[in-house]
Each structure stands twice: as C-alpha cells, then as structure tokens.
C-alpha cells in the first residue's frame, strides 16, 4: 500500500490565515464524493431494496444534528456538530420493496456542519451534485410548492448503521426526476453505466428487475 494513503497527513498550503466566522454566517461548500457507477442498470436496481415513484411533500435542511467525535481521525477538539437534512416523498407507485403506495418515505443526507461545538461561528451548508434537482445553489432544498408536484424516481435503501442519525425509519437514496415520457433524469453522474447509451425510462427499470 502506498505510503501516502496509509499515513494520515496534513498539508500546509501557502497563504493560510483568517478570522473567525460570525454566529449567523453560512458558508456554502460542495460535498465532493467520487462515484464509481454500477456496470449496468440491472446491477443498480438489484442493489436497491426499494424503488418507487413519488412527489416531495416536506423538506428540512436541518432536521438532525450529530456531535462529532473529537477523537475520530480528521477531527479536532471543538468541532461543531454535523447537520443532516431530510426530504420526504409521498409514494405514488412502488416498483420494488416493502413499502406501500401512499406511504411517506423520508431520505436523509449530510446537509452541513456547525463551525464550532457551541454553534457560535456560523455553519457550513453543503451542496451535493446528485441532489441538484432538489437543492438550490445556496444549498437550501426546494420546497414542495417550488417543485410543483415534480415526479421523482426514488432508489432507496434503509439508512445504514454508519450514518450517525439516531432516528428510525429513515432511508438514503439516489433520486431522478421523471419527465412526461417516463424518462429518468439524474442530477450529476448517473449511478450506472448505460450499455445502450440511450435515455433510461421507468419501463426500463421495471424490465431490468425481470
């Protein structure tokens, strides 16, 4: 294994100096996560326990807060809590999974972080490339009225144990808008490689499940 991966390191870049942020300031930053797509649509839908369509009925940019472990690698004493946002969908159709049409499915994502443990000094608000169809450039989520009943395809899985939000019944998901022809439009890179290099429709998702 390469040394540069095995050893935790801090890189000092030139010109680092600054002042402390004010209590009410919000800095917007992109959460950059690399993405290795599934080899095919079939592999993607097989991996997702719940696949449904629905509309957004509620959003909350700051639904949950989780203190950070100051002893965890990469953290320092005095770091502020992480903030998680939620998006709730009313399900219209269920293609796969143990959920019912009409039910509410809520997904969570890391939406930001307080600058300091006492929440003074402002907060960071993260934008996510793959949530660009529900998130504004300033990181706030579009309201249900702003989304205007936009149909979404939701490729969800129960919240993993590694996600520190304690609340039960939550999911994580990849989402795509569904246009009038049934075509899926993912924000950011597609989660799968399309072998046919053509647009994927909801019917293709159903067919991929066999």
């Amino acid at each position: 294994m390469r040394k540069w991966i095995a050893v935790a390191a801090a890189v000092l870049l030139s010109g680092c100096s600054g002042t402390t942020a004010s209590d009410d300031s919000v800095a917007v930053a992109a959460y950059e996560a690399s993405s290795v797509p599934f080899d095919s649509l079939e592999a993607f839908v097989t991996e997702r326990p719940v696949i449904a369509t629905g509309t957004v009925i509620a959003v909350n940019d700051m639904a949950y807060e989780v203190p950070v472990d100051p002893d965890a690698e990469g953290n320092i004493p005095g770091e502020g809590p992480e903030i998680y946002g939620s998006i709730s969908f009313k399900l219209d159709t269920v293609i796969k999974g143990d959920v019912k049409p009409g039910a509410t499915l809520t997904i969570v994502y890391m939406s930001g972080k307080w600058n300091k443990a006492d929440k003074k000094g402002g907060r960071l608000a993260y934008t996510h490339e793959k949530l660009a169809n529900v998130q504004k450039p300033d990181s706030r989520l579009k309201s249900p009225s702003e989304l205007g009943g936009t149909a979404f395809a939701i490729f969800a899985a129960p919240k993993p144990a590694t996600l520190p939000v304690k609340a039960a019944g939550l999911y994580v998901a990849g989402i795509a808008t569904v246009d009038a022809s049934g075509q899926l439009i993912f924000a950011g890179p597609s989660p799968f490689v399309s072998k046919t290099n053509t647009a994927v429709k909801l019917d293709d998702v159903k067919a991929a499940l066999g």
Partner: protein
Amino acid sequence: MFDQYDARTVLSAVEKCRYCWGEKTDIVWFAAAIPANSDGTQSLGDYVCRSFYVSGKCDRGRLRFKESLTRNISGDAGFGIACHEIGHAVGAEHYQDGGCMPSTMSLDWPFTNVLSPHLIAHIDAQYG
C-alpha cells in the same frame, strides 16, 4: 507544488504527521471506511470543508480515501484518486477534460493521475 503527482502548480505543501495538525493546517487527509454513496455507488474518496473563515472561504478541509478499495489499487490509479481529491481541496470541480477530475471514476479506467493544464492554470490564478 511539484510532487509525485507531477502537478506543476504554485502551491507549496508540507506534510505533517498524524494528529499533529494545528491552526495553520488547511487539509487533513487519511484513509477511512467511507460508506457507499446515497445511491449505492461506491466512493473511492471524498472531500469536504469542515470549518470556514468569515469570508466564506474554507479554513480546513477533510480529504478521505476509501481504505478498503485503495489498499487494493495498483498502478497509477491510486495516484489518480489522490490527484482527484486534492484537486477538489484546492477548488477544482469535476471536469471532463482528460485530467484527473472526471465526474465518475473506476478502478478499471486508466484515468490520468495529473491535473490538466487548464485546471492548473485556474489553480495558479487563484493562489498565485
């Protein structure tokens, strides 16, 4: 910065040891058990700002490599991931210009391990 990534930028870098970062640390990076992305896709690494200045600029960023995958990487792919995530840390976004900043990555793709001249020019303009 002219290092093993062959990136010729105006940045200078000093590596410090584990747990010895201080007030002047800009980027903390390490291997970690990064969970899958929300859509189930694997992530080879991620970068996010963890604290900021009143100006809105990032004070300290966290850069992680997925430990379970990077341990098995051979050839230049590991350097490509490092180039990609450090590129984010100095302000580069995903960019499909043949450099190390594609929007999607794969262990099988022989993607380059250097920043493109275009992105290097942007970094130099920002920090020079």
